[in-house]
């Protein structure tokens, strides 16, 4: 009798999973399997017939400088966004953890850009960064003409402009996660650290940072996956230019599939991209998890 009941329980437990699993397998894992399948073909998206081309697509990825460049641009964009972004977010969080007047107001304003679509954010910044835009005009009017740049059409700096906008958008979001982390540090630990004479930089490096590592882990995960997927910023602001310097992987996949109709090739870039993100985030989770301490 008991086994019969256990069996019934098991079946009803599974039934609760089925609807979610169906939707999820159909729109997440089935496409991933198909990406794997298409990536070994030369399908153009329309023809009924296509051929198995073994690893040709993958070999091409590393030989075609535009695609190789897209990976490099995306990595560069992510690294700048994460390094500078973390410094900004953590800095703001450390200030706002103090009981300052207007705390709520500051949090609200700083968080705001992260609820707005990146598409709208990109359009918002056009009027600032275009050549006869607000930034250059302000520079001119204060006599800093030598700083005037073609912000959106200079192969050396445009990717940095995009990273800056990304950092601007997500500063408040990461800040809130760090505030949560900072608030969870027990007061006894802070008092003990103060008694031992820990102050300033050494207190931050030896006490605060290890204790907020869980927040760092989460934040890094969100920033890495978010920054690597960037699409709207280059799509709107630069179209991938100048000289492909802001061409990102997501844009490259979109263009390869829907502009050049190379569905098979686009799939192999997509699969490489997935493996790349998976490996990178797993390494990151291992490293930051190991730095977490117990208290």
């Amino acid at each position, binding site marked *: 009798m008991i086994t019969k009941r256990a069996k019934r329980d098991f079946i009803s437990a599974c039934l609760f999973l089925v609807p979610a699993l169906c939707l999820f397998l159909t729109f997440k894992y089935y496409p991933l399997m198909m990406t794997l399948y298409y990536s070994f073909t030369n399908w153009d998206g329309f023809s009924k017939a296509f051929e198995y081309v073994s690893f040709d697509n993958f070999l091409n990825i590393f030989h075609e400088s535009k695609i190789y460049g897209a990976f490099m641009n995306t990595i560069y964009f992510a690294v700048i966004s994460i390094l500078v972004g973390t410094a900004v977010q953590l800095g703001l969080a450390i200030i706002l953890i103090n009981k300052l007047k207007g705390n709520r107001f500051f949090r609200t304003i700083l968080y705001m850009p992260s609820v707005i679509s990146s598409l709208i954010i990109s359009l*918002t910044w056009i*009027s600032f960064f275009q050549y006869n835009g607000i930034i250059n005009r302000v520079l001119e009017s204060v006599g800093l003409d030598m700083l005037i740049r073609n912000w959106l059409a200079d192969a050396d700096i445009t990717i940095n402009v995009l990273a800056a906008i990304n950092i601007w958008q997500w500063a408040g979001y990461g800040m*809130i996660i760090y505030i949560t982390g900072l608030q969870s540090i027990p007061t006894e630990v802070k008092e003990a650290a103060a008694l031992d004479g820990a102050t300033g930089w050494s207190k931050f490096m030896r006490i605060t940072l290890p204790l907020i590592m869980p927040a760092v882990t989460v934040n890094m995960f969100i920033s890495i996956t978010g920054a690597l997927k960037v699409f709207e910023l280059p799509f709107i602001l630069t179209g991938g230019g100048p000289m492909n310097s802001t061409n990102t992987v997501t844009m490259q996949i979109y263009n390869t599939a829907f502009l050049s109709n190379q*569905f098979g090739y686009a799939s192999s870039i997509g699969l490489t991209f997935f493996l790349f993100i998976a490996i990178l985030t797993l390494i990151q989770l291992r490293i930051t998890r190991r730095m977490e301490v117990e208290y």
Partner: protein
Amino acid sequence: MIRKFQYFVLYVAVAVISIPVLNIVLSSFKTNEEINRVFTLPSSLQFDNYRRVFESSEIPLNILNSLGITGSAILIAIFLTSMASYTLARRYEAFFQLIYLLFISAAMIPVAANLVPLYVLINKLGLVDTRTAIVLISAASAIPMGILLYTGFIKGIPKSLEESASIDGYGKISMFFKIIFPLLKPVTVTYAVISSISVWNDFLMPLLFLRTESKKTITLAVYAFTSEYVNDWGAIYALLTIAFIIPVLFFILNQKHFYNGMTDGAVKM
């Protein structure tokens, strides 16, 4: 001294964040000649730009589409993930742990990696240029976050509650809907609030699948409008103001849930 420095940093940050946004709002009231003069106030409060936006586009319809798509996707996601999480939180067998991992690890699959097969799949299902396509894809994308939030929350509900309900003769399904689901309200609200923003803001999926003007979401409509009325910056600014004021108001009214979502879901990852 340190206090003053901290306030200084905060005010600079607030200025940097709000100047671009204020520029949009101010410019939306300027005539196209005035827009070239930055940092000036509009000569008079005129709504001409807004009138042009409403005349030359189907913005009210696009906003309704976004509301409908976001609402449906989130409702589906709430229903599916709360049920699945009930099993995942209560069963400890390796099989269920594996399914939990299957759900959570999908957060690493970038949409771009699946772009081609998604397009083929939606085509095969006959869902190209339908809002249903966006609803299904968005609901599926919202699942990992929901599983994470609900499973954590349900683990905190004492099992004794279900034991006594089962003595009272509740079956599994009625127990879930009558006893457990009402208890999940706080986490449901948090989940609905934070996931709706990402569904609302999505651009790539609508761009890929929606063609007809009257079916487009607001984000896609903004894109279509800016590529058509390239030189009418007054109208573009008015449209941008309309487009971002909705999520911003939504955020201001639901702030608490955004912050709670971070502490409940994200940090316990």
